[in-house]
C-alpha cells in the first residue's frame, strides 16, 4: 500500500479498531448495557432514534455556529486591538486570562437566571469558551511583527492603521486560522455544557434526558454523534486553514503558533 493510502486510511483503521476493542471488552466482561453498551447496541439505538438525534444535533450545531460567529468577530477585533498596542495588551491580558480560567459550567446557571432556559445561554457559553484562543492567536500574530520590518514601515511614514492593515492582519492570518479549528470544537463543547445544565433542546438536553431515564445506549449514541460532529467541524476548519494560508507553511516557522489551549 502506498504511503498516501496509509495516511488516508489510518484514521478509519484506528476508529474501527477502537470499536472492535470496545465490543470485545463489553462481551468479555459481560457488562450490562446500563453500564457500558456495546457499539453494536449503540449503533442500533442511533438508527432507532435517528429522528430526534438529528433534530437535537442540528439545534446544537446552529447554537454553536452562532456563538462561534460572535467569538470570531469579537476575537479578531479585540485581538487586533491588543496586538497592535503594547499598553492595551498588558492592560487587558490578565483579565482575559482570569475570565478564561473560570469553568464555564459555573457561569451557565447565572446565564440561565439572566436569560432563561433555552438557546441564549448556550450561545453565550459557546462564545465565552471559544473567544480566548482566537484573541490570543490574533494578538500574537500581530505583536510578533519583526522589529526591523516595523522600522522599515515607520520610516516610510506608515500609520498604526497602515501597519495593521498591510502587515499585522495578513501576518496574523495563519495564527487566526489555526485558532479557528480549536475554537470551533470548544464552542461545540460550550453549547453542549449549557444544554446539559439547562435547556429544552439540543444534544446536551437529549443526553441529560436519556441518562435520567437510564437510557444509557441513547446517551452513548448521542456521544458518538457529538464526536463525529466535532471531527467534522475540525476537518472543515483545518481544510480552510490550509487553503487560506498556504504561504505560511512554506515561508514561516509554523511551530511558532500559539494555539491558546
Amino acid at each position, binding site marked *: 500500500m502506498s504511503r498516501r493510502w496509509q495516511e488516508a486510511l489510518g484514521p478509519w483503521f484506528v476508529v474501527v479498531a477502537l470499536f472492535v476493542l470496545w465490543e470485545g471488552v463489553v462481551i468479555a466482561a459481560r457488562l450490562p448495557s446500563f453500564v457500558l453498551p456495546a457499539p453494536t447496541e449503540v449503533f442500533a439505538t442511533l438508527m432507532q432514534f435517528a429522528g430526534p438525534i438529528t433534530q437535537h444535533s442540528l439545534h446544537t450545531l446552529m447554537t454553536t455556529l452562532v456563538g462561534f460567529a460572535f467569538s470570531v468577530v469579537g476575537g479578531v477585533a479585540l485581538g487586533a486591538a491588543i496586538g497592535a498596542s503594547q499598553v492595551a495588551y498588558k492592560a487587558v491580558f490578565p483579565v482575559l486570562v482570569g475570565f478564561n480560567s473560570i469553568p464555564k459550567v459555573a457561569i451557565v446557571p447565572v446565564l440561565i437566571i439572566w436569560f432563561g432556559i433555552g438557546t441564549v445561554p448556550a450561545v453565550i457559553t459557546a462564545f465565552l469558551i471559544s473567544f480566548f484562543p482566537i484573541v490570543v492567536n490574533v494578538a500574537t500574530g500581530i505583536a510578533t511583527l519583526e522589529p526591523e520590518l516595523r*522600522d*522599515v514601515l515607520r520610516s516610510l511614514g506608515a500609520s498604526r492603521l497602515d501597519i495593521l492593515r498591510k502587515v499585522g492582519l495578513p*501576518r496574523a492570518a495563519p495564527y487566526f486560522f489555526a485558532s479557528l479549528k480549536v475554537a470551533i470544537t470548544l464552542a461545540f463543547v460550550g453549547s453542549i455544557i449549557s444544554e446539559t445544565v439547562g435547556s429544552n433542546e439540543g444534544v446536551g438536553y437529549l443526553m441529560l434526558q436519556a441518562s435520567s431515564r437510564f437510557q444509557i445506549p441513547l446517551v452513548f449514541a448521542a456521544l458518538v454523534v457529538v464526536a463525529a460532529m466535532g471531527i467534522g467541524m475540525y476537518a472543515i476548519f483545518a481544510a480552510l486553514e490550509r487553503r487560506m494560508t498556504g*504561504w505560511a507553511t512554506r515561508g514561516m516557522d509554523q511551530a511558532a503558533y500559539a494555539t491558546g489551549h
Partner: protein
Amino acid sequence: MRTELKYVELDNVSLTYDGGTLAVEGLTISIARGEFAAVVGPSGCGKSTLMKLITGLAPASRGNVIVAGREVAGPLKIVGMAFQNPTLLPWRTTLDNVLLPLEIVQPYKATFRRDREKHIARAEALLATVGLKGFEQRYPWQLSGGMQQRASLCRALIHEPDLLMLDEPFAALDAFTREELWAVLQDLWLQRRFTCILVTHDLREAVYLADTVHVMSARPGRVIETTTIDIPRPRTLETTFEPHFIDLVHHLRARIAQARVAA
C-alpha cells in the same frame, strides 16, 4: 564642505536606552547630500543605534540630530531602509513586496490604484536592474537569500527616497553574491545619487562603496575617525586588488583594532 551641503548632521549626540545602556555618547558626524557614507566599528558599539537616531526611530537623549536642515523629532517619513534580514512579506509576490512603500508613502499612496500600471512598470524596471527580471511573480520563499536581498533593496528604493539606510544588508550572503551586490548598489547610487548610509563589518565593502568611512569607538560609540576614500568610480572588483585600496583597508583595520583594545 559648506554647511548648506550637509544633509545629515549629528552634534554631540548621546542616547541611553531604557535599561540604562549608554549606547552612544558625544557622537558627532556629518554627511553631505548625495554622499555615500559607510560606518564601521566594533560589534555593539552603537551603529544600529546611529541609524535609529538619524531616521528618528529613537530619540536622542542629548544633542541635536538634523536631517535635510530640520531637527529630527519623530520618524522621518520617506527614508528607504534595508537590513541584514530582508524582511519581505511572505504572502506577497516579489513585485507586490517592492510596491509596498508606494501603498504607504505620500504622494503615491493617494493615487496608488489609479497609477498602478505605471508603478508596476517602474518596479519591474527596478527589479530588472538588480537582476531579478522574471522573478516578479515569485514569492520571497521561492528566492535565494541573495535574491531576497536584491528585492529588499528595490523595496527600499522604489519610492525614490533621498536617504537610503543600509544596516549590514549583505552580511548574511556568501562572498561572491556580496561582491555582485556591491556593483548593483554602486550602479543604483551612481544613477540616482541619493544620500546613503551603510553600516557594515566588511571593511572591503566599506572602501568599495563609500565616499567616506566613519570609524566608531567601542560602546559608548562615537566617531573617532573619518577617512575619505579617494578612489575614482565606478569601482570594480579589480579595484579591490590595487595597492591603494588595500592600504585603505589596512588603515581602517588598524583603527578598529585600536578601538576594540580601548574598550
